[in-house]
């Protein structure tokens, strides 16, 4: 070190545009807390990376999440109160769980978070959302329930619950112009959330442009592709080789997998540390990231309606390709005949003619021309 102990390289480090950020996590929508639990599984980045400031240039993060909070009860809720009263300038709201329709709960409530000191009654989760959303830098929906309603918004539900954009309105923007950011999944894939959150931190720090999301608030780099496009069983589909029972290694589309049409990256990313997933490990895709989940996919274990047509169309093509590949496989599954332990050259090499060339013989109709694309 030089210059009075200041390292030379420190000039690479810039202070973030905002120095501190509070994350107010509304756990008590109608949720199972599965998304909070899920983020403890993340490693890209991990929750410790975010809270302990492992990544330089980002604001210091104060996380107020019921599942992980050191404080209890009113001590924890004090942060929510302060933010709602304008005493915390920079905060992000993370909504977890479906948002109940409290117009239907009469004098009672479907979901409350904390106790109102004046009345002794629970404070409705929707009241918190009403008070916090207008002052937040961003509102983020974690999991399909918060994003679109999810399981608890299923047909026949008694609570009339919904997702963030049903509640705040499609096209809602935060006071600094951010749309609702939704990271769906039931539960959310751990890294999908922390990575999106990291993007937001970078944006708020002034290190990244506006977060790219689609019209339903999903980060495009995570949800711009289908399950099928990332599935290692898609090759079985291509060859029209479909599983008839669970436990098979083949494509699961005939026994309930919706992968070809569902926007989700899980088969590609795996579930945790690259391990697990859905169709890639034998689990049918039930479309849990989608706004139409679950009703439009149930009953889950039946073939998707569109699957009958598409799997029949691919059968002749698949049968042909499968047979052609079998032919090729038969060839490459054998060693060349010149490999042996006899005292003679059969490789084509001639000690008397060391200058001789040895081109590989390939039937010309199988060979693509080496044309530049």
């Amino acid at each position, binding site marked *: 070190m030089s210059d009075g102990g200041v390292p030379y390289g420190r000039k690479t480090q810039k202070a973030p545009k905002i120095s501190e950020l509070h994350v107010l996590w509304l756990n008590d929508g109608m949720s199972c807390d*599965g998304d909070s639990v899920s983020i403890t599984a993340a490693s890209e980045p991990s929750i410790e990376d975010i809270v302990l400031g492992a990544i330089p240039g980002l604001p210091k993060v104060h996380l107020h999440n019921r*599942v992980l909070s*050191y404080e*209890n009860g009113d001590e924890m809720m004090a942060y929510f109160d302060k933010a709602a009263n304008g005493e915390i300038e920079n905060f992000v709201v993370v909504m977890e769980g479906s948002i109940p329709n409290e117009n239907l709960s009469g004098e009672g409530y479907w979901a409350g978070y904390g106790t109102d000191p004046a009345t002794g009654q629970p404070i409705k989760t929707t009241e918190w959302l009403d008070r916090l959303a207008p002052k937040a830098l961003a509102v983020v929906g974690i999991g399909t329930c918060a994003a679109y309603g999810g399981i608890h918004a299923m047909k026949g539900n008694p609570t009339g619950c919904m997702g963030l954009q049903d509640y705040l309105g499609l096209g809602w923007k935060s006071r600094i112009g951010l749309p609702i950011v939704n990271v769906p999944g039931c539960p959310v894939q751990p890294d999908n959330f922390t990575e999106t959150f990291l993007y937001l931190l970078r944006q708020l720090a002034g290190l990244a442009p506006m977060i790219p999301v689609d019209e339903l608030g999903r980060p495009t780099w995570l949800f711009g592709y289908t399950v099928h496009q990332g599935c290692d069983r898609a090759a079985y589909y291509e060859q029209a080789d479909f599983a008839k029972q669970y436990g098979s290694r083949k494509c699961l589309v005939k026994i309930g997998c919706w992968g070809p049409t569902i926007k989700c990256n899980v088969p590609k990313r795996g579930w945790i540390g690259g391990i697990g997933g859905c169709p890639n490990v034998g689990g049918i895709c039930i479309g849990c990231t989608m706004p139409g989940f*679950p009703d439009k996919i149930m009953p889950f274990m039946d073939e998707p309606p569109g699957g009958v047509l598409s799997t029949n169309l691919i059968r002749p093509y698949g049968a042909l390709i499968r047979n052609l590949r079998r032919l090729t496989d038969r060839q490459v599954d054998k060693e060349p005949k010149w490999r042996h332990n006899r005292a003679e050259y059969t490789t084509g090499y001639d000690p008397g003619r060391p200058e001789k060339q040895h081109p590989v013989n390939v039937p010309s109709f199988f060979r693509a021309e080496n044309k530049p694309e």
Partner: protein
Amino acid sequence: MNDVAPIPQTSARSGKPRGTLIEKHWDPITRIVGNLGIFTKIDFQNREVAECYSTSSVFRGYSVFLKGKDPRDSHFITSRICGICGDNHATCSIYAQNMAYGIKPPPMAEWIINLGEAAEYMFDHNLFQDNMVGVDFCEKMVKETNPGVWAKAETTAAPHAADHGYKTIGDIMVALNPFTGEFYRETLVMSRLTREMFSLMEGRHTHPSTLYPGGVGTVPSHQLFTEFQTRLATYAEFMKKCVPLHNDLFDFFYEALPGYEEVGRRRVLLGCWGAYNDPDKCDYRYEHMSDWGRAMFVTPGVVVDGKHVTTDLVDINLGIRILLGSSFYDGWEQQEMFVTRDPLGNPVDRHHPWNQTTIPRPQKRDFEGNYSWVMSPRWRHPQTGEHLALDTGGGPIARLWSTALAGIVDMGYVKATGNSVKIYLPKTRTKPEVEFEWQIPKWSNAIERDRSRTYFQAYCAAAAYYFLQRAFAELAAGRTRTWTEFKVPDEAIGCGFHEAVRGVLSHHLVIKGGKIANYHPYPPTPWNASPRDVHGTPGPYEDAIQNTPIFEENGPDNFKGIDIMRAVRSFDPCLPCGVHMYVGGGKTIKTIHSPMFGVAHQEKP
């Protein structure tokens, strides 16, 4: 009016006259899953909790919206009840569906499910114990609540320092500080490793992708089991440090705070519904349930005052009663009875889950009337007819107690002796083989619930060694089928019994016209977090916290309620399937000499 007992006019422990009561509440209770509030009245003169109410403020309505759905969807849907042990629900639902469809999965499927569920217990207890409960015992918390205890911890040598590497109890407490503590962070990393193990077997955590009625979609292979085995070895090595560390920490609390055994203590009223089916015995037929239930690798049972009332799942099933009394629901006396006799011909009660109809009625919270979205499950003692408010003690203490007493389980790696459970972990990278022995404790209290949790983590690691051995044997024999085909009958009933991470779990299913006519899951927390029932019997949290002594050094003004928090968290509350403590701004209420608070319960079933 109910015959709710008034707050006694004298302290239950000291016999001295009741002091001034101060209301304190904690809403929400943090570091648990789900919404729970605990509301108390505290007698600071006698340093004890005089009264406690437990409440949950969230309703979602699973039993309502399941009606009319395809029964094959039920495990996918009920998994979403809980975000930390969703897979326990999915598994239990599959058990109930297997019974209803009359099928038995291939043995390989059962070993895969047992391995997945073992990984779930290893993960979940681990995360809860040291990232949530552990914070109540960390340096920061102990300094804020009991500076005297912290001073002693700093100079007390840890008896098992050689096993876990922390020289003093104070060092252990520092290691438990949230995020900055070394052991806290190591636990987080272990919680990921175990979730990898889980995902190998069940696809994804917490809502599995590969579980089906009839078996699993997981493809068994040498790679699959090897990937599990290498991770299991890492976890087993961690356990060899984790168990002695917790013994040192918990033993220290008894020593530093004489009388600490009274914190969270209640009568021994434990329920365990059994875990890990044995495919050699289990055919999912109700008629044989007594036998295959006893063959489970965690023995089901109801333990009252230290003795088994039963180990028979049929008795357990028939004794379940869902009571109201303080909950936001209407009674269902006028609704349809779905099951009047079980398949053995035994009568089934109207308040049994098979016959329940959930009718939500949102209303204001009133601690003298209805105050929770949680109902009051009870278990009717077949001899005395009492409706017992059984608890699960957060799961492990009940499982170990029931298993130990029964003396049936013998996997080699785990052996129940009649009064203890021996747990064997073979050699790992840097540590030799170890045998731990969980002994039936003297009390059902906060510390022993927490201690049992750590032992049960080791139990599951040992059991996983056994399950792996069996899975490898199936693989070697070429028996790799994992699924049995089935047809959904037009009319059928089923029940599933399992242990969710934090205790008893049952799913009751009725199928009519090929659709779900009735579905009622009963996870552990309704048992533990239940409010006062129609008979006035408080739920286990309420009961365990009432009369709990206060050891915290803070007075009413900066009271944190740490002893109450430890008591509540020892039950591993998980309220998607809760407790709130209420510190009502330190408002003083008058000394109660006559029945007042909580006596005006409405007459409800």
